């Protein structure tokens, strides 16, 4: 069965500093990978996705992620964060064969302070 691990439940960072949110997955078949962001009291919004092709994926709000098949990772990065990036970030994996549902990690809360 596939699973997603987000080891960091919370990541504090200062404004304008770089940040990396880690995501590892386990799956024996090829997958699609997603990052979602959730601002306070809102639903989840798609940040970026990897389906195929280039392993470096760029998303909204200056975020990017790199798919590393050998390390089964899909870490999210931003070179310079803003206060407005404070939110919860969810990594998710989807098997691209047959009907399968997205499996989500437990989320990482990014706290950006001035």
């Amino acid at each position, binding site marked *: 069965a596939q699973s997603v691990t987000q080891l960091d*439940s919370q990541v504090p960072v200062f404004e304008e500093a770089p940040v990396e949110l880690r995501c590892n997955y386990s799956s024996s078949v090829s997958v*699609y990978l*997603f990052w*979602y962001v959730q601002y306070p*009291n*809102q*639903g*989840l*919004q*798609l940040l970026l*996705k990897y*389906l195929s092709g280039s392993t470096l994926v760029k998303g909204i709000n200056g975020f990017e992620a790199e798919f590393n098949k050998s390390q089964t990772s899909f870490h999210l990065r931003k070179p310079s964060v803003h206060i407005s990036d404070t939110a919860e970030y*969810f990594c998710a994996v*989807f098997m*691209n064969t047959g*009907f*399968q*549902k*997205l499996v*989500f*990690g*437990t*989320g990482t809360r990014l706290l950006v302070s001035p």
Partner: protein
Amino acid sequence: DVKVTQSSRYLVKRTGEKVFLECVQDMDHENMFWYRQDPGLGLRLIYFSYDVKMKEKGDIPEGYSVSREKKERFSLILESASTNQTSMYLCASSTSSTGGYTFGSGTRLTVV
């Protein structure tokens, strides 16, 4: 702009009440999902549906049921609400091709 709409943002219900949470999507998506979100537990799948009148149990279906009479609408039903069902409930829809979900804004349910 594509949309998933959940009928209520906040709900307060009493223990034992029957509760209906409604979700409507305007994207003609085949698949619809209900999750609950709790601190430290992430998103847990309650039920999903891949077609009208079809439903499948997710990871935590106990105490819940669903209804999908029309393609655009997917309802979550708490037959007899209990305090441990106090949570944020998120509805989502998707096509089968790439797995990306579109989420509603969520309903924060408090059972007292």
